[in-house]
């Protein structure tokens, strides 16, 4: 009995100690330098005039946006402590944090919001984000009313850090070209949780906590060092030997699987829905056999998606069946999955009039997109299509501009590609399917696809503020595109976050990965 009591007391004590330890481990603490990494050098650190994930990583720390997003795609207060949308959807009012200041101590005012929107409208690469904005009223220093020509639900996602930044009018309003403004990369006066200390292109960006940040106690980290290491294998080794704590946007399947086994390392594919990257096989529907939807469907039936997901992507990628990323609340997975069916593929090709002659029906070219890691898919597709008599010639393009030129001028039959949704379909999806955007350079409607109903659906959805109705419109759009297949959707790009055990609250709980503020990320002892 005595032993029993003793054991009970000991067990209770151990449990209590462990619980306290676990709590201590989970309680954020201030201090420390987080070392993260980027695969390339950002051209510009100011997200108001440049998009992209490396600009997003740094820009989202230096500049604040009105909103941030949780993992459920719900907007959360950020620089705007609250917001209202008028019943007619034509006015969005932002109520700004009252104690928010720029890094030079100047207060962040509603006029800065109006100024930032004006600059973004003029200089940001994605015109659709703020195109319907007609004016911004500033009734007082902390209220900005965005007036719209028509309801524009995409505005909410466009107000996240990856796509919008509040920049100081007293710095960027000096008459110099905002795109090449000297303060974009040096002596940056931002509005975010971290200040720029040093940017050495090709080497690193160093940022330190901004003590005047409006939210008390944040950011937790003293410093963020974002190193620039282009080689993914070198990045992985640097993570494993502890030189780096966190790496995001990693998408090489072999490295992802290797890191799963690495000691002290965590791997997650959460938090990339907003970026929304999809690998796909683009088909030029304006020439040759690909003009016939049955040929395109036959190609889909001849490709074994399971082989791609399991063997080529090694189980690291999610399936994607439409042009909207599977993590998006607007995704419609209830469409034809085009399971491998060689007989059906052959039948469709016969029906389209491309009879087998010997062991071949017709020749076609496939551009090898010059992104790292895309060769295996390309090789597999060539092999898979040969089984139904489609003779594929792979054209290797030496670099991105050569490939972009071919795509932008529709001088191709098929190409693998990787395209991002950028949050709302209006920003990153419509561009691929709208008939008004045919052949307007790379990542436009380079397939030459045109369907009046699709144009109508996308136009209606762009202005529909009722989320359920909007979802239904996009569901129909996805159904049509999945049937007509100007694009065969392969998989979501397997973007992953690698982070060491030391990282508390890693950026995997939102939708923008590190293209969102890391004010709540902290380092454990």
């Amino acid at each position, binding site marked *: 009995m005595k032993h029993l009591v003793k054991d009970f007391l000991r067990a209770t004590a151990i449990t209590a100690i462990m619980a306290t330890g676990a709590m201590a481990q989970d309680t954020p603490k201030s201090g420390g*330098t987080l*070392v993260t990494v980027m695969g*390339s*050098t950002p*051209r*510009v650190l100011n997200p108001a005039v*440049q*998009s*992209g*994930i*490396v*600009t997003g990583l740094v820009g989202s720390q230096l500049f604040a946006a009105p909103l941030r997003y949780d993992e459920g795609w719900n907007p959360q207060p950020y620089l705007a402590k609250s917001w209202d949308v008028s019943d007619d959807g034509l006015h969005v009012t932002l109520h700004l944090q009252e104690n928010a200041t720029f890094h030079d101590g100047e207060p962040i005012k509603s006029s800065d919001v109006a100024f930032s929107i004006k600059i973004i409208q003029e200089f*940001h*690469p*994605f*015109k*659709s984000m703020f195109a319907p904005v007609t004016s911004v009223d500033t009734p007082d220093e902390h209220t900005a009313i965005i007036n719209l020509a028509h309801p524009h639900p995409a505005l909410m996602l466009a107000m996240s850090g990856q796509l919008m930044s509040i920049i100081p009018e007293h710095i960027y309003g000096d008459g110099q070209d905002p795109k*090449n403004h000297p303060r*974009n990369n040096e002596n940056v006066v931002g509005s975010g949780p971290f200040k720029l200390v*040093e940017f*050495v*292109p*090709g*080497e*690193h960006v*160093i940022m330190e906590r901004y003590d005047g940040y409006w939210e008390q106690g944040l950011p937790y980290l003293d*410093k963020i*060092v974002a*190193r*620039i*290491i*282009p*080689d993914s*294998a*070198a*990045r992985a*080794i*640097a993570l*494993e*030997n502890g*030189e780096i704590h966190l790496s995001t946007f990693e998408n090489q399947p072999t490295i992802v699987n290797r890191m799963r086994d690495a000691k002290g390392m965590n791997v997650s594919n959460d938090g990339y829905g907003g970026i929304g990257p999809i690998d796909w096989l683009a088909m030029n529907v304006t020439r040759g056999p690909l003009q016939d939807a049955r040929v395109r469907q036959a190609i889909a039936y001849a490709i074994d998606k399971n082989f791609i997901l399991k063997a080529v992507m090694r189980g690291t990628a999610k399936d994607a069946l439409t042009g909207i990323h599977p993590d998006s609340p607007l995704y419609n997975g209830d469409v034809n999955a085009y399971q491998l069916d060689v007989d059906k593929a052959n039948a469709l090709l016969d029906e389209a009039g491309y009879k087998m002659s010997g062991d071949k029906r017709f020749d076609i070219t496939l551009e090898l997109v010059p992104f790292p890691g895309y060769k295996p898919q390309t090789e597999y597709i060539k092999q898979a299509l040969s089984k139904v008599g489609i003779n594929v010639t792979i054209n290797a393009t*030496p*670099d*991105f*501009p*050569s*490939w*972009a*030129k071919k795509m*932008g001028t529709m001088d191709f039959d098929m190409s693998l590609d990787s*395209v*991002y949704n*950028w949050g709302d379909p209006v920003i*990153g999806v419509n*561009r691929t399917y709208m008939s008004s955007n045919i052949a*307007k*350079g*790379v*990542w*436009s409607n380079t397939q030459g696809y045109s369907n009046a109903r699709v144009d109508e659906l996308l136009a209606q959805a762009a202005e529909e503020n009722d989320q359920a109705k909007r979802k239904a419109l996009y569901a129909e759009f996805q159904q049509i595109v999945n049937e007509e297949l100007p694009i065969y959707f392969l998989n979501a790009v397997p973007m992953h976050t690698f982070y060491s055990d030391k990282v508390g609250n890693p950026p995997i709980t939102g939708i923008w990965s590190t293209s969102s503020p890391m004010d709540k990320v902290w380092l454990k002892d």
Partner: protein
Amino acid sequence: MDFMRVITTRLFYAVILLLAVLVLNFTLMHLAPGDVVDTIAQSMGGADAEVLEKIRIEYGLDKPFLVQLGAYIGRVLSFDLGYSFYYNLPVTDLILQRLPATVLLVFAAQILAMIIGVVLGVISARRPNGILSNFVTFFALFGYSAPVFWTGILLLIAFSLNIQWFPVAGMRDVTVEGGFWIHFIDVLRHLVLPVVSLASIFLALYSRLARATMMETLGSDYVRTAKAKGLPDRQVVYKHALKNALAPVITLAGLQFSAVVSGAVLVETVFAWPGLGTLAFQSILARDTPTILGILFFSALMVIIGNLLTDFVLRLVDPRMRARG
């Protein structure tokens, strides 16, 4: 006087060569489909057509080829290498920022390869059929045949991942705090693996050449005379024979300079060494014409300087060259 004339002629040819490098490369870059604006679009995850067109007009990329070429050459003649559209910086600033890292890497690798190469060559020349000689031959050929990026990754796995002696990438650890010597040691630690990778290719060349010329020299009459005079073996080898055997090695070093610079492109990419090599690699991929031309200009300049230095050093070590003027 003759020496000065040689130098002046060389310099004249150097200027012609530099201009030819610029015109030829500008033309080649222009012939390739697409341009830097496509790469800017890539870095932004796409962009509206009107935005891209505006950028093209702003950068003068919509103008006819000859107008663009003329404007570029005009700028270069007034010592302005232009503006990098991709990096948003003047090309000269960009190159000067990266130059020290490459100079450090290239010179350190050359010197290391030469010293170890010559020492190994001499050792193996003294006993050409000994175990050591065979080992040196194997080692040298292995280094020469292995692709430099592969050697680099192997070194990374061995010395950064497994035994963690050296850092993986970059030239310095920005989180290190301390005085000059702390930073000096930090750079030195970062330098080891890239230098060893780069030196591994050239080590083979130097050791093989040093071995061959040393064997030839050791068999010559004056060495036999020195030995007959009763001079100690060590003195004969290192004082008399080595000086003569060095001349071809130095010539080769000069000739190899361009190869070292191009080898640096690969090594810098693997180790994220912030030098001209990574800049060149990224600028080529980005089709950033002014930056690529600026780098070619600089690397041509470095090769010319390397060759001139070779001439100069040869004259220092070989009295016969001095006699020729």
